[in-house]
């Protein structure tokens, strides 16, 4: 380690060899100490991140115990999957005959699930029947190319009996289809309880005890001593129906997030449409046109500071300005739109997007300015030197070269907007809504708010749905950030 003594050292300016040897050791110890401090912070950060992720994942992948609301044993002596088509058809018929609204329920199923009739088509059938016309089974079923028992051909399609509707369903499904139908509509398995996957692996006793307890309680409740709660089985709460179904606050297993996802997409799309041109325009003006006078400096300082203003304040501004003062415009009534049953006053997607655009505008402007500043001046000089105007130079050189940087900044701003909640609460996004937004003037909810609403539900399984929703949100945000990184990398490679 140590070098041979330096005998030619002549000045007295530096500490002598001995002292230096000692302080080398001390300086190295110091370096090591800080190295460990930094390492520790990284480990701590990674650990927190992992814990966060784990606490979500364990709620999204759980074990569940199920009980059947209608005990299959009461439906048939044999196991249901062994029954023939006919026997399953009989079960459907019997079950729906026993419900007061059975005939209507079955008709709805036939209209929507078998025939796939739209609301308009159903209305027109009803109208024709009201006008004393008979809409025959043959007409509608042949139009849709579906099978029907020939005996029903000339009957009115809305006046059939339970048995007839059951026969139609039987005609259109095979054995396994009918089996699924019976399970879903008749047996109606219900999740009694759910446990995070780690608890299942580590703590089976508690789970078994809880199952036994639930079983005992349900037997009393349902007055059915044979009722059984199933063994715990694995269930991923990340399911396709999250995207395709609306929120259902009675059955967590069927609850989807479609309304919120569509709301988020509408809100973000409008926000981009508003904020991107405005932000880029402002950035171009500040970078390329402004002569840097005192007014420009004041504006610049304001933009820089606005980027740090808490979002709730934008919410309050949006409430006063867009929801209240500009209600005529943001509700669409100024254009003769948006009125009607779902009138939202000013609490529309448009108001939210305008507010959100204000919120991310400073970030977009600052990032766009940065990107524009990074365009080499030599390109501008070359363009001006050929007799180009300012606009020609901006349009042909500055903007194309700054675009990847601008988009990177915009994507990051958008991902912020995606996760934003406070603003939207203030400008009146609602959480209990099952109607998809149909345009800028609709009421709406967004993903983070929907997740919040789910978490505050009393039934514990909604937390599992919420966890799945959080994973979905994280996936969207991560893809947005990845897109930003890819864009930036491609840009920096090209700029060399």
């Amino acid at each position: 380690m140590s070098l041979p003594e330096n005998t030619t050292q002549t000045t007295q300016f530096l500490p002598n060899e001995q002292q230096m040897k000692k302080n080398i050791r001390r300086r190295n110890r110091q370096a090591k100490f800080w190295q460990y401090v930094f390492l520790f912070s990284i480990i701590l950060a990674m650990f927190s991140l992992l814990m966060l992720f784990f606490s979500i994942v364990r709620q999204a992948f759980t074990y569940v115990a199920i009980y059947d609301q209608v005990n299959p044993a009461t439906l048939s002596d044999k196991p249901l999957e062994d029954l023939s088509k006919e026997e399953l058809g009989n079960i459907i018929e019997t079950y729906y005959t026993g419900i007061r609204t059975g005939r209507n329920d079955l008709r709805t199923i036939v209209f929507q699930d078998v025939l796939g009739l739209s609301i308009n088509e159903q209305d027109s059938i009803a109208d024709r029947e009201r006008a004393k016309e008979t809409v025959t089974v043959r007409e509608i079923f042949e139009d849709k190319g579906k099978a029907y028992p020939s005996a029903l051909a000339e009957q009115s399609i809305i006046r059939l009996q339970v048995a007839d509707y059951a026969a139609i369903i039987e005609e259109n499904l095979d054995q396994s289809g009918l089996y699924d139908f019976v399970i879903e509509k008749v047996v109606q398995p219900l999740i009694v309880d759910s446990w995070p996957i780690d608890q299942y692996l580590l703590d089976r006793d508690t789970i078994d005890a809880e199952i036994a307890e639930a079983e005992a309680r349900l037997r009393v409740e349902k007055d059915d001593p044979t009722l059984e709660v199933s063994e715990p089985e694995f269930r991923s709460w990340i399911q396709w129906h999250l995207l395709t179904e609306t929120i259902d606050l009675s059955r967590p297993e069927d609850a989807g997030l479609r309304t919120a996802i569509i709301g988020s997409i509408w809100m973000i799309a409008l926000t981009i449409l508003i904020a991107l041109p405005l932000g880029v325009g402002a950035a171009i003006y500040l970078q390329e046109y402004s002569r840097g006078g005192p007014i420009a400096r004041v504006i610049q300082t304001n933009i820089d500071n606005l980027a740090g203003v808490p979002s709730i304040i934008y919410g309050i501004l949006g409430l006063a300005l867009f929801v209240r003062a500009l209600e005529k415009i943001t509700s669409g009534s100024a254009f003769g739109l948006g009125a009607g049953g779902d009138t939202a006053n000013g609490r529309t997607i448009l108001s939210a997007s305008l507010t959100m655009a204000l919120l991310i505008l400073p970030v977009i402007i600052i990032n766009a300015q940065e990107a524009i500043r990074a365009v080499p001046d030599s390109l501008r000089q070359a363009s001006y030197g050929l007799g180009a105007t300012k606009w020609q130079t901006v349009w042909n050189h500055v903007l194309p070269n700054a675009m990847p940087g601008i988009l990177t900044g915009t994507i990051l701003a958008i991902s912020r907007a995606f996760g934003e909640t406070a603003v939207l609460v203030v400008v009146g996004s609602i959480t209990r809504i099952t109607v998809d937004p149909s345009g800028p003037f609709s009421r709406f909810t967004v993903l983070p708010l929907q997740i919040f609403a789910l978490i505050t539900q009393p039934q514990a399984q909604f937390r599992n749905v919420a966890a799945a929703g959080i994973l979905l949100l994280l996936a969207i945000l991560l893809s947005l950030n990845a897109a930003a990184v890819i864009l930036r990398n491609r840009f920096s490679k090209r700029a060399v």
Partner: protein
Amino acid sequence: MTSNGKYALEARNLNIFYGNFRAVRNVSMQIESNKITALIGPSGCGKSTLLRSFNRMNDLVLGSRADGEVLYRGKNLYGKDVDPVEVRRRIGMVFQKPNPFPKSIFDNIAYGPRILGQRNKKILAEIVEKSLRQAALWDDVKDNLKKSGLALSGGQQQRLCIARTLAVEPEIILMDEPCSALDPIATLRIEELMRELKENYTIIIVTHNMQQAARVSDYTAFMLMGQERAGELIEFNQTDRIFTQPADSRTEDYITGRFG
């Protein structure tokens, strides 16, 4: 050739300021048409500043200001009714570091004519070929005009920039140390090119390389920082006079390498 007669450009009592700092003091000179005029002098004496003021490129620097006159065809370029956009088309510029656009060779050259309003593809192709030939680059690149201008060598890039300038048919070409980023062979080719171009164009070149000034230029202007670091024109004459019998002792000191 020009209605200024013998002179393509004439500076009269030109002062150029950056804010309060006077970078060029009281320069008066006449630039002869179809000749190469070299501006030499030590670093920071205002050569680039003076050159850029000849086509109002200096307007682009925030806080810069010119006092005095630059006459072009009898018209003061700093007059109220003069549009710098028009000036820069007539008086083109080639920069120290080759700065092709990050576009194809074709688009680099077609850019100028396009922004001036020429949309005809056939005519654009003709302009591209003619300009590349004039810049002695056609044979090197005629088979891949779609290639990025940035993929060329440094010397080729600089000739591309010259071709790009020629494409808008300027009358005067300003060159600010066009060879300082190039190797000796590429430098030689640019110098040859300048000699060919002066048949049709007036060229003003800033160079810190005295051999280059001696080799290519017909006239040489020697500048030096005077009081308060303002650049001044010390001597302006035919190049062989400047290099053989300078009138000012400071010029002699500079060209013999005694300072600067």
